């Protein structure tokens, strides 16, 4: 077997491994109508039909048809079905990693109810198994494997961040506290770019009297395994957090403004383990809402009603597939009852920022993601908003890049920041 064949073989094997009743039902239900394309920011902004979600999952469909259906087997024998080739793998690597954020807007648009985005992430897994992952992402994966964070931040770097907060902002960052009720896990994106978030989260939790801790060992919620579709790595990276959480005996693991890290722990890990985790995985958005509703934190009502219009961007992992639609809105309506406006479409049909799923990390995809961001710009402008609030640091970075790219004087803010600023001490 030539090395080339081995590559495709690995992809096909990965596909065969994943196909079960659930995937088969969805692939069989697909009429390839292409309505999903109308939900995809990359198709809508480029008009390239290959960016249609249905086409992005084509490899999985072909592997399924060729290996699981009678007709497909007959057709393969007759040479009517093309086996997956090396070129196909290279081509789909570009389609699925550069032009897809796995935001799953297509999943909700599908008239047959197919989780198209979910299936595309299976294709990503196959491509990764074949060793065909964009080098930028591979590099990040290697860094996370070697030093702990995809951007190369080491444990020392993280400790320096904690120390900075204590030194410069005078707020204590408890570390590895046994018996704490909440383990707070940040991401390198957040602390790398919005270091103040560390202080904000600390102030909110302190104000509520939550017994919390961070751990330099379980420091980064970022999970490259989930991004590239490697379940083993995903488990490895998630376990860095889970093991520490078990060791410290916490009741909940609080994920700050990171989308996929939250989804990896909350949605994926129980399924990888085949059972629920012994603690709650909670996102900062839900946490803040809960503390506010319980009256554990007091906020100044209408503090952001200062003439600037504020809108909220729903992120794919936290809102669309996390279900946290009302939690941030309730807070915003309290903080800015008069200046809060909605973008359209919103909630589960929100348009993706265009930078998730690793796309923001791929340098060659810059034009694509900036093109995709045009839809977001249109939405924001239609809502006449000056500030866009969101709960995901990756979205926030994409918004900042995008506003710069389109030369817009608008702000992208994290909800944590707003809540912290509105705290009544």
């Amino acid at each position, binding site marked *: 077997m030539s090395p080339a064949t*081995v590559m495709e073989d*690995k992809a*096909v*094997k*990965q596909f*065969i*491994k994943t*196909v079960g009743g659930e995937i088969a039902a969805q692939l069989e239900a697909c009429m390839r109508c292409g309505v999903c394309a109308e939900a995809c920011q990359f198709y809508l902004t480029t008009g390239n039909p290959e960016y249609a979600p249905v086409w992005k999952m084509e490899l999985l469909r072909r592997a399924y048809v060729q*290996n*699981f259906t*009678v007709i497909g087997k007959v057709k393969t024998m007759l040479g009517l079905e093309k086996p997956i080739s090396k070129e196909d793998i290279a081509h789909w690597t570009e389609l699925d990693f550069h032009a897809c954020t796995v935001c799953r807007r297509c999943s909700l648009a599908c008239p047959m109810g197919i989780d198209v985005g979910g299936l595309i992430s299976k294709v990503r897994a196959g491509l990764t*198994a074949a060793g065909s992952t964009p080098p930028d992402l591979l590099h990040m994966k290697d860094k996370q494997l070697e030093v702990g964070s995809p951007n190369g931040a080491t444990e020392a770097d993280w400790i320096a961040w904690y120390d900075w907060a204590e030194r410069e902002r005078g707020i204590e960052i408890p570390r590895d506290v046994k018996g704490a009720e909440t383990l707070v896990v940040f991401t390198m994106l957040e602390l790398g770019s919005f270091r103040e978030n560390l202080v904000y989260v600390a102030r909110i939790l302190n104000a509520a009297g939550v017994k919390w801790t961070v751990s330099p060992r379980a420091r980064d919620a970022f999970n490259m395994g989930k991004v590239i579709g490697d379940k*083993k790595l995903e488990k490895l990276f998630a376990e860095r957090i889970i093991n520490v959480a078990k060791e410290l005996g916490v009741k909940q693991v609080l994920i700050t403004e990171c989308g996929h890290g939250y989804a990896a722990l909350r949605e994926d890990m129980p399924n990888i383990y085949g059972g629920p985790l012994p603690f709650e995985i909670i996102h900062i958005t839900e946490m803040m809402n809960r503390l506010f509703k319980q009256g554990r934190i007091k906020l100044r009502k209408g503090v952001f009603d200062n003439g600037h219009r504020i809108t909220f961007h729903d992120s794919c992992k936290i809102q669309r597939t996390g279900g946290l639609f009302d939690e941030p809105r309730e807070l915003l309506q309290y903080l800015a009852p008069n200046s809060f406006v909605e973008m359209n479409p919103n909630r589960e049909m929100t348009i993706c920022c265009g930078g998730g799923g690793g796309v923001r990390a791929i340098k060659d995809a810059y034009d694509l993601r900036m093109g995709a961001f045009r839809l977001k710009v249109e939405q924001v402008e239609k809502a006449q908003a000056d500030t866009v609030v969101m709960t995901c640091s990756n979205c926030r970075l994409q918004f900042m890049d995008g506003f710069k790219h389109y030369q817009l004087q608008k702000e992208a803010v994290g909800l944590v920041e707003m809540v912290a600023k509105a705290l009544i001490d």
Partner: protein
Amino acid sequence: MKTIYEELLERGMTRRDFLKMATVLTAALGLEHTMVGKVVAAMESKPRLPVIWLEFQDCAGCSESLTRSHDPYLTKLLFNDISVDYHETLFAAAGKQAEENKEKIMKEYAGKYVLVVEGSIPTKDGGVYCTVSGKTAIQQLKEAAENALAVVAIGTCGSFGGLPHAYPDPTGAVGAGSIIKDKPVVNVPGCPPMPEVITNTIAHVAILGELPELDYLGRPKAFYGNTIHDRCPRRPFYEQGKFAESWDDEGAKKGWCLYKLGCKGPTTYNACAVIKWNEGVSFPIQSNHPCIGCSEPNFWDNNHVYDPVAFPPGLGDAAGMNKAGAAFLAGGALAIGSALLASQQKKKAAKGGEKEG
């Protein structure tokens, strides 16, 4: 040889009467008005053609029907003027004498007589199931057809095999058209056919000496050109979706469409709805009974009489249901096998992936 016109004059008919009769006859034959001249010319120039009427596996119902024709001209024409020279049920002669008479006509009028066939012809076991004077029906038919000007098959039996052909068809019954291949056969199906249709068709052949326009089943288009359904007085109810659902419900009393009670009108080509029976009194649907499609080939086997025409035969019966269930489960069993194979494949793929990864 005398022409028909001359014979009629001899019987005391005037020219005026003759022309009147020819006009009515033209209409009765289902021909256009402009054809009157042709009919007149034919009757003036051609001698009368004798008719030989053979009966095989039949009930003589078609002959019965014929005798109830209410068209005076045609009946008279047939019996008095055209002359049916051999008819087993109707004529007085019997036995050898009758057969001799038939053979005489066949010789004398070779190529000029009209052969009418009533009843089906058995083909199984050398055709022994129907013999006349020692000859099988097949032989009789072949002999008679050899020098006939035209062959007219009367009734569904004579045309398509009819009731004797119905399952299990013990005699291998067929229509005349299946035996005679070298001559056109006019089929006048019906169980029985309408008397007017019989007389008109025979008269058409006997008077004009040519075949009427036929459809793909060899039936005269003039009478079999439309379905009962297309000409049914209850058609508007069909369109409106007003159906009698049982024999004595409101719909049946109001004279609604009998489709759901098994009316075969939609698939039956015949003139019943237009000419009607018993001097134009009524026809089955008018009398609140669905058409049973008696003039269509295989009507007996094709559907239960009271099953709607849409039912494929045997639909929904217990044996069929069992078979259906069995087919479904067989598919399921095969699928479970395939799924087991697929899970092996999956396990293999998972293993291979681990080794390499």
